[in-house]
């Protein structure tokens, strides 16, 4: 395992409060200082670093380095940007035998958010004449946006428990896919240590009616075409060929995962003092991996991971049904991989195989060729890594490499550089839609405001991110995909809230006049105690 170096004589990068030392074209070091137990290592080009007045991601990398039991370094991938507590694009491994902690903030709210790629039997030339029809059918078939309404209406909590323990395996067993799908899913579609008893009733309530739904924000279903192959042998192994149509799905564990993260952050906050732990940011709340709280979170997180995989499985099978009608033919799973997860893995630390709790938040596991956890047909090439670009730009398929650093991790996407508010201020959504359509990209399900939030210039250049990840020896390129059509969630404006017209029309008593369908005129009273 690559070891994080000590500070050298390279000049510090200006424009940041954190001391940063350049150690090569794609490696910057944050030397240990204060409470940091290990250095920070940024795997990025200089151009991808946050500039003056940029986000707090470098400070967050340093904060993560203070966590008990962290080993080697607090890593950041080239698509790093500011998150809550942990940076997005952060990788941190702790040693449970040395008091190492697990932090829900190191996984993120959307547990097991990830990407699934399916390869179609048809080529681009066959799809383009019927693209509009296919996109309309996908838009009609894929639930998205706020609230309830998944493709798979579960019978109740008993069936949800099966989803939480069985993940994509259970979904396939219930008719939402084929057995081969499971061979191409991380962990064969389900992790084994999920415990629904660690999932709160609120999380259950939020999860019951959202299996098979896209959500909103930066989640999407995109129809793509293979534009360029960099590694023919690996591409063939993955089931990809030039000109082939693909479907990429990006989503996670919906409200259930968010609730689990929030519940366990608060539970850990309450007990940190008992374990003698202090953290520089409340969202870094953590507990020893071996503690009841640590184990409780890991088992709840595993349940959410299974939910996320079942969710993508159901969505993929729905896309498969659409494609079977128009343009005809199958959709074969290339791979499904999470980029928000903590896993117990074995890595070499100081030359010795050591069991670690590896947090990847906005970072993708990238197992090298020959790794025993890979399915036999992928063992020679290494694990497929799926990197969605920003809307209207290209996406990449990568593969793990021998000796991959950062505990066999790499980037997860383009990485935001502009807040939603800032994007709304600077981007005209209608103009963006026209630009997308002028390039032959069909857009469904997005308002002009929603498009503006996800504008390509709100993100880093995904090609620069992938170049840096490859330059840092974290992965290698296999193929590039270009978008043909996208189904987005029904996200709207820049506010992190739902504004509703009815709210502006409400009477002093609270009920909107002329809207008899309003419920709860007497109020639905909730009790909030401190």
């Amino acid at each position, binding site marked *: 395992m690559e070891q994080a170096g000590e500070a050298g004589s390279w000049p510090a990068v200006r424009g940041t409060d954190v001391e940063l030392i350049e150690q090569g074209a794609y490696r910057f070091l944050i030397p240990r200082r204060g409470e940091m137990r290990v250095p920070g290592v940024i795997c990025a080009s200089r151009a991808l670093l946050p500039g003056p007045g940029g986000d707090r991601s470098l400070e967050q990398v340093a904060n993560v380095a203070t966590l008990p039991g962290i080993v080697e370094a607090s890593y950041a991938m080239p698509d790093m940007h500011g998150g809550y507590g942990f940076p997005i694009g952060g990788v941190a491994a702790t040693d449970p035998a040395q008091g190492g902690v697990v932090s829900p903030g190191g996984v993120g709210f959307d547990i097991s958010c990830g990407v699934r790629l399916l390869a179609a039997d048809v080529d681009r030339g066959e799809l383009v004449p019927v693209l509009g029809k296919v996109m309309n059918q996908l838009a009609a078939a894929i639930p998205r946006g706020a609230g309830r309404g998944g493709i798979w209406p579960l019978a109740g909590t008993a069936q949800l428990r099966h989803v939480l323990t069985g993940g994509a395996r259970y979904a396939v067993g219930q008719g939402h896919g084929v057995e081969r799908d499971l061979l191409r899913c991380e962990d064969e579609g389900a992790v084994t240590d999920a415990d629904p008893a660690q999932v709160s009733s609120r999380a259950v309530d939020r999860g019951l009616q959202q299996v098979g739904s896209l959500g909103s924000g930066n989640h999407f279903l995109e129809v793509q075409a293979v534009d360029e192959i960099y590694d023919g042998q690996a591409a063939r192994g993955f089931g990809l060929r030039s000109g082939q149509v693909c479907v990429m799905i990006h989503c996670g564990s919906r409200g259930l995962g968010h609730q689990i993260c929030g519940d366990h952050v608060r539970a850990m906050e309450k007990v940190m003092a008992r374990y003698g732990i202090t953290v520089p940011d409340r969202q870094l709340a953590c507990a020893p991996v071996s503690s009841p709280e640590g184990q409780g979170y890991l088992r709840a997180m595993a349940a959410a991971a299974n939910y996320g995989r079942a969710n993508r499985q159901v969505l993929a099978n729905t896309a498969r049904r659409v494609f079977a009608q128009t343009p005809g033919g199958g959709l074969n799973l290339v791979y499904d991989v999470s980029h928000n997860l903590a896993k117990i893995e074995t890595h070499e630390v100081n030359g010795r195989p050591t069991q670690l709790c590896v947090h990847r938040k906005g970072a993708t596991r990238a197992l090298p060729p020959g790794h025993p956890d890979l399915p036999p047909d992928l063992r020679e090439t290494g694990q497929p890594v799926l990197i969605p670009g920003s809307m209207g730009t290209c996406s990449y398929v990568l593969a793990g490499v021998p000796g991959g650093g950062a505990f066999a991790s790499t980037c997860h996407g383009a990485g935001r550089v502009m807040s939603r508010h800032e994007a709304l201020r600077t981007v005209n959504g209608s103009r963006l839609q026209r630009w997308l359509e002028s390039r032959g990209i069909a857009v469904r399900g997005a308002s002009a405001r*929603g498009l503006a939030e996800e504008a390509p210039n709100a993100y880093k250049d995904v090609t620069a991110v992938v170049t840096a990840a490859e330059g840092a020896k974290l992965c290698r390129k296999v193929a590039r995909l270009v978008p043909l059509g996208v189904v987005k969630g029904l996200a709207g404006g820049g506010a*992190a809230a739902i504004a509703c017209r009815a709210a502006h029309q409400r009477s002093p008593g609270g009920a909107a006049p002329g809207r008899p*369908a309003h419920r709860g005129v007497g109020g639905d009273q909730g009790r909030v105690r401190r």
Partner: protein
Amino acid sequence: MAGDSEPDLVAAAIEEVIYRLDAYGEIPVAVAARRAADGGIDLTLHLAGLDQVEITGAVPKAVCLSGLRCGRDESGRWSCAVTIDV
């Protein structure tokens, strides 16, 4: 609730709204909060179905504890900051 603080009460109130939205497809069109005798708050939500409103913003999913604050600073000026994940 973790922490006996005003910011945590604000967070809990917003989380209640998010929960109602996600689990029941309901959105408050009027909200009232009253201090309760035990130091908590009584929160009254007048709810409408999501199908009754126009969605104009990204869907809120969770309240972040980073940077959460609510109260008066040294100069006596009141402010509140909450980051909501979407």
